[in-house]
Structures are given as structure tokens and as C-alpha cells.
């Protein structure tokens, strides 16, 4: 796995964007990610849609490598940790989690996270609707933006569609950054891209396997 990073300033904090769909916040030793959608492939299979499990296993493996690389103290998932109902993928995830016992885990509840607080606690996740740390506010989908506040969210699975010379098009996942908002790309690779955006002062940090570029 090739980890490419880019540091940006957001809300007075220095954040490290990566091309592996996670942000590392060095000052707080925190790894930030969103929309893992654990259980999605099994959920599809339960409903008779045959999707191989490999994509889910590779998501977990990628996360393991990132946790080993950055060795954070804390991990914040800004929503949609799980996709739907309890299924076979959950067990694998629970076992997988055991290797990171020391890691503090915070989950911002997403629209897909419908289990009880106890269920998440059992997995070692502290659950919040909104979580503040230093000057940053973590939410799943930042619908209300208060003045002078800085929000980190997920939910939309952002991407960019780029028209190049010679009528060529590229579609890449990205981080969307405005003065007050930072939206994370979906961590899971079994997700689509939403290239629509209504932001005015938007910077996109799109990425590939070996680069991050500001658009």
C-alpha cells in the first residue's frame, strides 16, 4: 500500500490528508475516517445479491495497515460504521478489532448506525451525535453550520468529475474542504461517488493510488 500524504490547515489545526481515505491529526494522535459500511456485502448477499466478500476483507486490511503506520491513540469514525442489520461480517469485524485493544474509539452515529448504545459500547466505541475536540466538531452530515465553527463530516461519499483537454474525463474520490467544512471520502471501496456539490469556496483534494492533488 502506497500512502501519500498532504498537510492542510483547517480550523486552525494541521491535518494530514491521505490518499487512503483517512485523515491523521498528529497533534491529537487521532485517525479520522468515515463511511466504512461494515456488513454491506453480507447484507447484499442476505438479500440474494451475490457480492464477493473480498472487497470487505480488503477494506479491513487497509485499515489495519493504516493503524499500524500512524499508530494513533484514538480513532474517530464520523458515521456509517455499519451498513445495516447485524450479519456475518460483524463477527469478523469484532474479532479483527481485538488486535487494537488500546485504541480509543469514537463513533458519530450515521444514518446507517441504528444499534443501541450498549451494542457499540460492547465493541469499545463511545457513541456521539456530535463530538467536539479542540476547535473541531465531528458530525455525520453537517446540516447546520454555526458561525466560527469547523465541521468534519462524511455521509456524502464525495468525488470530482474533471473535464480535461481533448474531451477526456476523470472521476476521482476526494476530500471537500471549505473554510468551515471538511467532508471525508467514504472509506469503503464498495461505495459510489457523488460528484455534485453546491459549495462556493470549495477546494477539492482528489487522490489516486500515488498522488493527492488540489483542484
Amino acid at each position, binding site marked *: 500500500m502506497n500512502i501519500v500524504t498532504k498537510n492542510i490547515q483547517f480550523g486552525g489545526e494541521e491535518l494530514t490528508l491521505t490518499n487512503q481515505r483517512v485523515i491523521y491529526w498528529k497533534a491529537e494522535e487521532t485517525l479520522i475516517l468515515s463511511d466504512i459500511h461494515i456488513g454491506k456485502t453480507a447484507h447484499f*448477499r442476505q438479500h*440474494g445479491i451475490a457480492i464477493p466478500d473480498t472487497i470487505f476483507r480488503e477494506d479491513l486490511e487497509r485499515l489495519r495497515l493504516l493503524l499500524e503506520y500512524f499508530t494513533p491513540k484514538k480513532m474517530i469514525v464520523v458515521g456509517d460504521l455499519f451498513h445495516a442489520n447485524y450479519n456475518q461480517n460483524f463477527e469478523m469485524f469484532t474479532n479483527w478489532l481485538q488486535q487494537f485493544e488500546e485504541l480509543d474509539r469514537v463513533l458519530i452515529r450515521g444514518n446507517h448506525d441504528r444499534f443501541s448504545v450498549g451494542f457499540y459500547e460492547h465493541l469499545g466505541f463511545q457513541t456521539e451525535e456530535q463530538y467536539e475536540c479542540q476547535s473541531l466538531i465531528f458530525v455525520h452530515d453537517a446540516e447546520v453550520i454555526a458561525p466560527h465553527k469547523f465541521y468534519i463530516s462524511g455521509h456524502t461519499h464525495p468525488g470530482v468529475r474533471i*473535464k480535461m*483537454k481533448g474531451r477526456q474525463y476523470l472521476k476521482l474520490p476526494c476530500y471537500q474542504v471549505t473554510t468551515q467544512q471538511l467532508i471525508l471520502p467514504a472509506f469503503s471501496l*464498495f461505495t459510489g461517488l457523488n460528484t455534485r456539490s453546491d459549495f462556493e469556496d470549495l477546494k477539492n483534494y482528489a487522490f489516486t493510488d500515488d*498522488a493527492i492533488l488540489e483542484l
Partner: protein
Amino acid sequence: MSKLEHTEGYRIVHNWMAEKGFAPFDFQLKAWKKYAQNYNGLVVAPTGFGKTYAMFLAILIDYLNHPTQYKKGIKLLWISPLRSLAKDLQKAMQTAIDEIGLDWQAAVRNGDTSTKVRRQQEHAMPDILLTTPETMHLLFSQKKNSRWFKNMRCVVVDEWHELLSTKRGVLTELVVVRLHAIAPKIKIWGVTATIGNLEQAKDVLIPFKNVKTAIITSKEKKKLKIISLLPDEVELLPWAGHLGGKLAKEVLKVIYKNNTTLVFTNTRGQAELWYQLLLDADADLAGQIAIHHGSIDAKLRNWIENAINEGILKVVVCTSSLDLGVDFKPVDCVVQVGSSKGIARFIQRAGRSGHSPYEVSKIYFVPTHTLELIEVSALKEAVKQRDVEAREPMVMTYDVLVQFLVTLAVGEGFAKNETFRMLQQTHAFSYLTKDEFEWAMQFITKGGATLHAYEEFHKVVFDEEKQLYVVKSRRISMLHRMNIGAIVSDAMMRVKYMKGGYVGMVEEYFISKLKVGMPFVLAGKVLEIVHSKDMTVFVKRSKAKKAITPSWNGGRLPLTSYLSHYLRLKLDDALQPSTRERELKFLNPLLATQNTHSHIPKSNEFLVEKIYAKEGCHLFFYPFEGRLVNEIMASLIAYRISKLQPITFSIAMNDYGFGLLSDQDIPVTEEDLSAILSKENLMDDVIASINASEVASRKFRDIAVIAGLVVQSQPGARKTNKSLQSSSSLIFKVLEDYEPNNLLLRQAYTEVFNEQLEEVRLRKAFERIGNSKLILKVAKGYTPLSFPIKVDSLRNTMSNEKLSDRVARLQKQQYKLIT
């Protein structure tokens, strides 16, 4: 042979016809006799000659002669591709039954039938059931459905030519073999228009050995008159789709000369455009003009169809939505906007005017760009020869196979070996191997190849007690029933007025690009979005003068190979048109321009044009092989050039040729050309180029839906199943990465081959090119031949550059983000 005429049944039916002032046509009589002699077969006749009566009355006569052989329930099953046909057919049949004095009941069952009526039918089926292939599969998905079909005597497949070369045709084949398994004595008849492969069409419909079959052809021929409308002067740069506007006035003259005119366009977008053009050209048409296409609300369409019959409308702008269907008596004129792209379709459309048997059908042709005039000239020649296209049946459609197996499992359950033998009876799956069938069984019972069996996957399970494969989960049954069928469209949203009333449907994709308040056109009305919820978008009338027309996907028809053959002949003539070729004479100045700026390829030459423009470097090729083959050739050539150096192309094509566009200079010299266009390693390179291009991923879209990998939301419905939403392109990628041997994935590639490639044709084309003199011209500006390709917005991409190299270049040039 003379026996039938002496039977009671014949006498009754003959008298009934005589009372109405008819006498049977020869072919009808022949069909009745063959039916009485236990034949199966095809009835071939042009529209308007009573094909329906040929079959329907055959069964009535048989019943009248042998009433005791008929038992309760469905006796005749009538399958037709169109819902709208059924209603009028049912009326005609019921009238005949009542007037003859029988107690039979004919009834319709399809997607429009109310739940109440459906429940009644399930309790007591009518004697004649008129339905569609999809509804038959839905019936197969019901518990104990065999009982409804066990007393059936005959199944008639109407408009078989329309179904034959589609996956709906495969659905129909499966219906036939299953009915044959339930009622082995059932007779199978097809009703069809003339096509190039009638014998094959018959064998596909009736695949059983040891049965007598016949093809009954009517001698009656329809007279056809083709007139092209020419603009005042020839435009030197023919812009795709933009010429038509100038001809609106000419079309108006035609409309006023006739009673009722149908204006056929090739796409829904074009229909909206022409509706506006005609109204703008003559405001008096308001109230007498209507627009009819597949995205307009069914109620409105029904109203329009009735209004045509009552002669209220002067002109209806339509798409293939009115290709088939009941006879519209008042229609005496047809206008075709743009090339119909096929000979059969052209004849069919022309036949919508002058419907009664001995009238002449009149069709006016309106070119949308100047070069299309060559196509009319080619069409005229083809119609003269009555050289109608063959419709190739589809084979090895694993997506339909998977769907059918689950349908059976949801219904009565199925036994493995028996079902395998049944499948092998069909033409579509006659070469199905045991291994492939095993794969399909694994796919529906385990969710993938044996090595990764998933315990949570239990779509279809083996019921030990019944010894059958069944579906036990109600939710999976429900999801599956929603998904039955082989017609795949993009996710559609119902368009509804705020104050109530539906306008029609547009693609979700189109709506997602519009913002609230932005005006767009649908059903000839300018509308703006107020808000949207789930699969419904609420609109109000807009006062805006300018509005966007939705571009519905999939509206493009490729030139058939038959027509492209005639096209090349005519292009050869175009340089020295005979005095009788009005269209070709008209085109002469355009060809002169082509000659001055570049070159006109003679029949022994192959032209390649290189044009440098602001957007990059273009390379244009002109094989004149029709869009589908040109598309394959384009990826092949792009692939071969990319072997010279890593490069990214944007590819556009039309029926005449294709263009490769790159942001870099395309390094091709006259010497390279002969290698690039060589027939060496042809098939290997084609396979490699298809793998490198997006063509297969696009084909996978339909496959994923039919096989149940993508759950579709119904227009107007609430977005249920949100947690099961995904796109076919995402699933394509997942399978490519993790399950490359998935047969559905392989099917996407073979479909490219079977439907587009036509290996023989491709080899011939390359042989022709190999024997031609290759001419590379560097032109200063766009030429008449290249311009229509350049402006075509529907493009493919083909790249063998590393993503990182493209991204690196992106940072050095101007780009635009599209939101």
C-alpha cells in the same frame, strides 16, 4: 385438404365473416387448415391484413368442431410484446366470440391490470388470456401455477419479429418450453412481419422435434411511396440534428395536405424538439398536435391514441412508441425525421399510413443532416429489392437464465435435472453445458463459486421434503417479483404537477443535474422543478422561453448491416448520380467541398483524415460499416495506436465512420496506417481492445439488473431498499477485481461480440481495407464527412496511460470541474 370447408366450425365462422362483408384471405384459410391438421408454425403478413384472425379464428373453428376436447380454464394464450395492443385485440376477439354466439371470455392480464381483476383471474382463468412475456414469468412465480396452463390448447406469440432478437425473446422461448412441459400437446404459433430469417424464427419459437411445422405467407404486398423533403440549399457542414428546423415549413405543407400525420423521430429528445418546431412554425396547430413517447404518462398516451382514432388530431409527433399497435384508421401520411437506420423499421413505419389492405402507404423523409440523404437513397434501393434484415436470436444469456431459475424457485420450485433438460430444449440455451448450469446453480444457492460459499446467502435453497429447489424468504420472493423482466431502463422518476396529475417520466440522472427552478421540457410543456421526493419529482408550469430537453439515454439506433451495404453502393454512385436520383444530385455540392478540402474515397480507397484543432488532435476513419461495427473498429484502432505510445483517446462514431481525439499529437504516418489497419492478429487485438475499453462495462448494466444484482426503484414509488442500492459499474468493478470468472461478467464481453462484432463482417471490412489504397489527408478544418462525428457528444474513452500520468498532465493543462 378440402375437408375443413365442409365442417360445421368453418361454416359458422365463414358465415360470420360474410355477414360483416369479409371473405377470408388465402393465407387465413391456409392457416386454419394447417391448424386443423395439428401443425405448429408462423403466419407472415404485412400489418392490416388480419393476421390476428388467421390464428384466433383457427382455434374457434377447432373448438366448434371438437367442443368436448376443450376443458375449463385457459384454452388460448396470446402473448404480445406491447401492453397497448392487448386491449383492442381483446375487444375484437370478444366481439367476434359474442357475435358467433360462444360463451368464451377473452381477458387481458399485464402490468396495467388491477389487483382485484388479477385475483379474480387466479380464481377462474378466462378462456383466452392476452398477456406479455413478463407477465407470464410473473405467473410462473406464483404458487401452484401449473394448474392454470394444463388445459391449454394453443399459444400464439404476436409480433414475434419484435421479440426475436431481444432478451424478451429468450423469456418467450422459456415460456414456450415450460408450457410444453405442462401441456405436451399444446400447439405453438407465431405471428410475424417479414424478416430475413423466417425459417430460423420458426425454429426458435418451436424448438421441438417430432412436431409438424409450417410457414404461411400472405401474397398480399403493401404499396409504398417514399418522398424526401429537401431544403432549399445544401449546407456545406452538415450538423447532426440541426438541419431539420429549416424543414419544419415543408413538413407543415405535408401535414395540411393530409388528414392525420404521424411524425416519427428516432429519440424522445428529438420528438420534444419537433413538437416545439411545428408549434412555433404554426400556432394554429395548438389543440390538433400531440406528442407521444415512452416517457409520457400512460393515461395521456391512451388519450392520444384514442384521439388519433377519432380523428381529433391532425399530427402526432412520436417515437418507436407508435411503431406497433392497433391500426389508426384516420392516419394517411407518415413523416420520418432522420434516418430510420433499418429497412424493416422503415417499412413498418410507412405501413402506419394507408392501413387498409389495398391503400398505398406514403412516407416523407426529413433529413436531420445533409449526409442522411444518402441513406434515403440507400433505403429506397433496399425497399425496391425488399431486402429486409434478419433478426438474430440471442443465445447464452446467463442473466435471463439466472432470473428464470429463481422465478421457478419462487413459484412451484424446480428439480435440477428436469430443468436442465428443459433449458436445453430452447434455442437460447441449446449449447448450455453441465458446468455452466452448475455455475448458475451455485450462483443462486451459494452466492458465488464453490470455494467461497457464504452461509448468509440463501436465495434459493433445496427443500429436502419436496426434493425441489425453492425460495423460502418472503422478502427475496418480493424483491425478485419486482425484478422480473428483461426491459432495463435507467432509474426513472415520475413527473407530477404540484396541483396533481402526472406528466410522464424522466431519468433520475437528468433530474439530479437540475436545480430547483430550472426549466425543462417534457410532453411538449415547459416545466420547472419545485421539489422532489423519493422517485417522484413535483413540477409546475414555467414561463421560461428557453428550456433544457432531457436527453434520455439509449435512444440511438445503429444502422443495420443490410442498410450499410446499400449505403456504400450509393456513396459510390454519389459522384456520378443518375438523373433519377434526386437525393444524390442534391448532395453534389457537399461532396465537391469534401473533395476540395480533403478527398472523396472511391470504392477502392480508404480515407483517413487528420485534423488539428484547439481541443487536440483528431484522426477520422470512414469504414461505412454502421455505428456498432464502427465502435468496435474504433477501439481496435485506438488500441493499436496506443501500442506505439501510451495515449488516451476520446472516441466518437456514427454510422459512417469514427474519430479518435487526443490532447496530444497522434503519432501516425501514412506508413503506420497499413500496420494499424492490417488484418494480422485481428481477433486477438479486438479482444484486447474490448478488454481495455468501456464497452463491456456498459453492456453489463442490463445484465446486472436482469440477473438481480442491481435493485431498481420503480418510478413514483417510495425509495425502499435504500440499503441495497448500488450501481452496475461498481459491481462490474468488484467482479472484475475479485471474481473474474463470473459468467455474468463474461456475458458482458460475449454480448459485445455477438451483437456488435459480427466477426465475418469485420474480417471482410479489413480485407476490403487491405485491398484499398490508404489515403491520409491532413485537413485544415473540419470536412463534411468529419464534422458530424466531431460534434457527436456520446463518447467512449480508451486509455492505456497510467492514471498517475494522466493526473500529472492534468495539473499542467486547463481543466474544468463538473458538478
